[in-house]
């Protein structure tokens, strides 16, 4: 009885974990670009979609080619044949998965580098406007081109790399573990970057790019680098998503996704990766649990599409956080490099005879 009960909730739990992990990668990457780097990449969803399309196109084209599927790129029959092929050829399936991740990251990074061009020239808010629309243009092209992801119908049959595992429950848990592993790796990676001189450099460029230039920092290169890193990570999130839902539809990548991810970052605390975990957790929970399927599970029914509620709540959170706690749940801290550790040691405390500016500030700085 109890096991049955658990079993019925297991899919919800695994899907929550997978989505949390994917969103976390996306949110951490946006935090890198915007929180640390100060580039308001509000076209973030576009870079996620680049990875998602890459995974779909690469898988479908490759499988169609090696398995000799003639049924037509977008046909339902091709979709079935692809799934069959992938579940019976584990090596190929995994190879394609890995190749998608690598290529997705590369292409995502290239697009990110391209997007750093306007980032050098425009004022913050105009850059944000431009990037929001860049993001949506990508979707408009994808939803109208059969050749990419089959326009409005979407590309299907991008079977999970683990589809050779016959038991659905085991398979989804295994895939969840892979995705979580990527999220953990991403977290470790961005956290290590954030605690390095590179993290310090990013913040310096963000706070005052002219002063950074005057201190010898090649600001265009730094902006390019962070956009490459952020976009490559976003694309990886997209690749993982495609293999998770086993297909890709252009209209899934609405600007709303950017705003959802942005809310995760703002709510948690910009330039603070721990905060972003918290923000992502809260927002993923909202995203998952305010859904028709979950509510019907609870026996709740409303007369309208409950997803609308979700967006209203996102909007309210954005407004409240920006108004009352713009630094987010966990505010930004210093860059924890070994230098800071050294600086904190009492070895460098001195009794100073004459301190400049002392007369005004003595109260505030006597820690």
């Amino acid at each position, binding site marked *: 009885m109890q096991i049955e009960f658990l079993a019925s909730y297991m899919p919800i739990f695994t899907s929550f974990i997978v989505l949390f992990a994917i969103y976390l990668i996306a949110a951490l990457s946006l935090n890198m670009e915007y929180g640390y780097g100060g580039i308001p990449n509000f076209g973030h969803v576009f870079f996620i979609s680049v990875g998602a399309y890459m995974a779909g196109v690469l898988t479908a084209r490759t499988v169609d080619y090696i398995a000799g599927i003639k049924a037509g790129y977008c046909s339902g029959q091709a979709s079935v044949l692809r799934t069959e092929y992938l579940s019976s050829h584990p090596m190929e399936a995994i190879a394609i998965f890995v190749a998608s991740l690598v290529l997705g990251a590369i292409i995502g990074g290239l697009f990110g580098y391209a997007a750093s061009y306007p980032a050098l020239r425009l004022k913050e808010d105009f850059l944000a406007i431009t990037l929001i629309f860049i993001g949506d243009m990508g979707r408009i092209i994808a939803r109208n081109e059969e050749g990419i992801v089959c326009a409005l119908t979407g590309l299907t049959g991008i079977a999970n790399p683990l589809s050779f595992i016959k038991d659905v429950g085991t398979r989804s848990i295994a895939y969840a573990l892979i995705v979580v592993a990527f999220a953990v790796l991403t977290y470790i*990676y961005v956290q*290590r*970057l954030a*605690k*390095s*001189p*590179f*993290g*310090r*450099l990013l*913040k*310096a460029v*963000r*706070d*005052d790019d*002219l*002063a*950074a*230039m*005057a*201190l*010898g*920092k*090649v*600001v265009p290169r730094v902006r390019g*680098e*962070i956009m490459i*890193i952020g976009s490559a990570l976003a694309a990886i999130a997209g690749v993982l998503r495609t293999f998770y839902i086993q297909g890709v539809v252009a209209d899934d990548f609405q600007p709303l996704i950017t705003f959802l991810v942005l809310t995760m970052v703002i709510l948690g605390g910009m*330039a603070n990766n721990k905060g972003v975990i918290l923000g992502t957790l809260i927002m993923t929970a909202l995203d998952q649990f305010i859904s028709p399927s979950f509510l019907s599970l609870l026996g709740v029914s409303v007369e309208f599409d409950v997803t609308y509620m979700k967006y209203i709540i996102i909007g309210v959170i954005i407004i409240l956080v920006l108004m009352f706690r713009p630094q987010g749940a966990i505010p*930004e801290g*210093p*860059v924890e*490099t*070994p*230098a*800071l550790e*050294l*600086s*904190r040691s009492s070895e*460098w*405390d*001195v009794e*100073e005879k*004459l*301190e*400049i*500016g002392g007369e*005004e*500030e003595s109260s*505030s*700085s*006597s*820690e």
Partner: protein
Amino acid sequence: MTAILQVRDVAKYFGGIRAVDGVSFDLNEGQIVGLIGPNGSGKTTLINVISGVYKPNRGKIFFKGEDITGLDPWDIYHKGIVRSFQVPRLFEKLLVVENVMVAHRNQKGENPVIAPFHSKWKDQELEYARTSLHTIREFGLSRVRNNWATELSGGQMKLVEITRSMMSEPRVLLLDEPAAGVAPKLAREIFSHIVRIRDEYGLTFLIIEHRLDILFDYVERVLVMNYGELIYDGDPDGVYKDPRVIDAYLGE
């Protein structure tokens, strides 16, 4: 004495305005030179041109005999010319010690490929940190080293800027009003730090400052600009007697 920085007939125009109009001078190694002149006479523009923020419309700038005209600001920094700003431009969300750390050159950990591998840059980082902390102590900033940059007083910010500029082992410092908005006593302290650095490291300074009574106690040579032109180049005492300088300040 050798000329470390040579400015040759440099001009910078904004639309029809000749902000700097054919300025030439040499800076000799180890000199502290004051750059003065009425508002809008082109002093800050000149520093912006030398430090690469603006490209000059005409003229050449040589550093140790090498033509550095039109290089990007970061390249000029790496050559050994560092400038400060009239309004202190500290990185707000960095601590004082981090503000100083940023200024080090060739940091391995600033490369995003190497940055995740802390062991690859940790030694260098600690070495830089010691240098930074020593200098911070020399400038009397130890007590606030772990404070946010925004928590400092104006005078402390000015000092952090100078501390920061020292990290790249520069040869020439261009300081834009290093003591602006600071009470006279503290301004003198900042200037005595400047003299100390010059004596210790043999650096060369070009300093914009408005309070001549303070400035003239520390500099051995003064350049005076008016309407973008250099109208005086000589010792401080002569400034009071030179009719062109007096006309520039008091009007003709």
